[in-house]
């Protein structure tokens, strides 16, 4: 149970960083972008998304600012910081290693 949660948490962090790599988004935007990127495989619950966003922000990987949304509502937008970009690179690399290893292991 714990293991699954931590795996998911790591995955969610990576997906959020990736979602924001193309530009700034608000919380709902991040959620929609992830759905779109994964072809609907991951539908992120708000109860997981917002704590993760805040945690990543406090870790210094995301920065946030208040801007007008597409329907002119004040909304909180997130974007990657330099550290966040670096983290995305590292995490992607690590993920690829794990995915490769897993694939190998499962094919063997």
């Amino acid at each position, binding site marked *: 149970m714990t293991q699954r949660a931590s795996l998911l948490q790591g995955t969610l962090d990576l997906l959020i960083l990736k979602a924001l790599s193309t530009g700034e988004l608000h919380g*709902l935007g991040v959620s929609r972008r992830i759905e779109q990127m994964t072809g609907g495989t991951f539908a992120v619950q*708000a109860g997981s998304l*917002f704590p993760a966003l*805040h945690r990543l922000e406090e870790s210094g990987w995301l920065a946030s600012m208040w801007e007008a949304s597409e*329907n002119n509502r*004040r909304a909180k937008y997130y974007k990657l910081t330099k550290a966040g970009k670096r983290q995305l690179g590292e995490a992607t690399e690590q993920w690829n290693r794990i995915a490769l290893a897993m694939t190998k292991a499962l094919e063997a």
Partner: protein
Amino acid sequence: MVLLARVTSLIRNLTRRNRVERDLDEELRATAEMLAAEKMRAGYAPDAARRAALAELGGIESIKEQVRDVRSGAFLDTFRQDMHYAVRLLRRYPLFALTAALSLAVGIGANTAVFTIGNSLLRFSPVAVSDPDRLVDIGRSFDGIPIGFNPASYPDYLDIRRRTTTLEHVYAHPLFTKDMTLASTTGTERVVGDVVTANYFTALGTRPAVGRLFLPDDNDQPGASPIAVLSHRLWVRSFKSDPGIVGQTVRLNRYPVTVVGVAPEGFQGTTVVAADVWVPMSMVTYVTGSTAAQLDARGAGWVVLGARLKPGVTFQQAVADVANIDGALRAEYPGQQHPQPFRVLQASPMADKMPLAAAALLLLGAIASTVLVIACANVAGLLLARASGRRREMALRLAIGANRSRLIRQLLTETLILFALGSGAGIVLARAMTTALISLLPALPIPVHLSLTLDWRVVMLTCGLALVAALLSGLAPALHASRADVSSVLKDESSGVSARFRLRNAFVVAQVALSLLLIVVGGLFTRALQQASSADAGFDASGVEVASIDASALGDSETTGMNYVRELIDRVGRLPGVNAVSTARMLPLASESMGLGLSLPGAVPAPGESSADVAGNGNVVMPGYFAVMRIPLRAGRDFTDRDAPGAPLVAIVGEEAARRFWPEQDPIGKQLVMNAGTGAGSVLQVIGVAHDVKYRTVDFGTVPFVYLPMRQHYTSTVTLVVRSGDGRSTADQVRTVAAAMSPPLPALSIQSLEDVVAVGLTPQRVGAFVAGSLGLVGVLLAAIGIYGVTAYAVSRRTREIAIRSALGAPRGSVVRLVLRHAMSLTAVGCAIGLVLGGLAGQVLSTLLVGVSPIDPVTLGVAIALCTGVALAACYVPISRAMRIEASDALRSE
């Protein structure tokens, strides 16, 4: 970079909480609106879109809660909230808070006080002693008490030193320090002197502050090394820290000695007694009343030994080694009496002189922990009561998404605040309690230096104790409260209540039992004190003042010493206000004893014994002693001035001695034979029979006792005993007389005999006072517990009681209903308490001489007290139950 971000967010979270909260709210609200807009674009009606959006988000408040949990400083934040909430609750129920905090303060305060005293006694960090953990103390074991020493003899010391394979630097010094007179160019003063073998300082690894200390090759043969080492304190006080003192000659008890050095500051060996001056063993016959014979007498116990474990040797090996030596000595000297086996203990300030203090301390510790347990049970009971009142609140909070660990944390925070209040007050209380405890200890005849300041270790220990106690007493109620089952509570339930109720009952029973235990212990000690200090001790201590005099300091010979004492008695006796005056070798009930060395004429020694000594104790007194002490003479006459050297040798025997030596016969005119000393073989004639007096503290049973006249048996250390006529102290006048003597007795230390006797009763006195007063506190706490349980029972059964009385049940049956519960708890508590009290009485039986461990008076009073208090505690709830009207009861539901 990442760390910096964390710190910044932490600071922001903590300092600008409102702003952070507002932002979070805004962010989630915006998300909800955008989601709703999305739904509307997908064709939902505005209202339906908003509802669908909120449903998809899954509860804004619960998301907020989850976000808060991941924030930096989330823990601190929660803690602050909990604190805030807890303080508010405690302020809303001040009586609850006050009771709980106060009971904890008493418990924690008592423990801190005992720890403080124990710490100063037991913490073994002797000043200027190297590697003290490798030091051991050796003496003969103490009858009945597993700690403390009887003294060993000087030949014992020489034997152990010669034969040991596990110990090095075996040293010896007298069990008791000696008062000495120090005369130098700066004046004359009384000092406390210790006589040590020359290897003493080497054994302890002590380095001098000035000059040198004794060296192992300073000769221990009598008179060989007339030298002395001064304490740093004496050096500063009397010699203005002049290093030039080294090499000067001072007079100790009129005997010239050369000061060779000054001990380091604060050095007092491994004991609590702070000596002013040390002289080598070779001086023992010059500066104390001891005779050279004492150095050779295998049976004369007067020293305790110390030693250092050889490298690589364990303590157990040393114990076995000394036991072997003991066995070998017994085989080699079969005629000798070796009353008790040797005992080896890790060196500690408690070991040699303070078995009574140790016993008192153990007792205090046990009592104080019991009080803390009572206090914890009380707080736990109160918390449980609170918990049942808060089930609805807990259930509600669970229902709106609080998680259980959070609730438990919150309840524990409340408990912790209570304990913080309790320990704060407890530490303050501890100061007062320490002072009170110390004032209970009688004026000791020796200068004892204890540091009784609260040190941080004690405070840490107290806080630790409080924390553990808080967790223990808070956890059960917290777990119970948080287990609130949402649906049943909100439906107004009853499941789970009985379990909690049982737990509360258990707490109340524990409180009653432990309080009863304390009261029983306090009562037993009070009874023992009554027994011990009643006139049945055989003498009347009130109005008697005593001062110990070392005549060896004044006269070099027996004749001058004797004349000096007679002159002193004569002058004091002529003072107005003095009724009677005399001297004695030792005082009753002052933890002293003196062997008899007498046998019956014609008695044949048992095989292996050199003489047929009769068992018993003795004393050497001047005429008038019996009048001063108001010891009735049952037959015959007192000693007179004519019972002098040259006259027929005489003795006065106690009633027990008369009974044992000459059963059914008239003891007057019977004879006893002296076995030891210069007069060995001479015959004493019994001239009187005295009422028996209790001489030792530990064995109050009467032993055969024989008095000898001092003029026929000179002893240089005597105690002046003075009875004043009108009960007013004559100390000042006696001091004036002493100072006018030639040579003067400077700075005579005068104590009331009551104080001296009190030293021996210290554990009983401390036990009676502490156990008694804390027992009362415990009973009051138990009363609060009983009150709480009864009140709760009444409130739970309001409906039942109302219906019963509405149906015509007499009021008496309602009372019985409520009372039965409270009284059955009290009865169970009392029963357990009685068993515990009986066990405690057995454990303490050595200290409770003269009192049966199952003393009906004590037990009866304790039970009556507990029952009375329990009934009183029921009064308010019962009168409330009596007033219950059916209509009110139904409305309250």
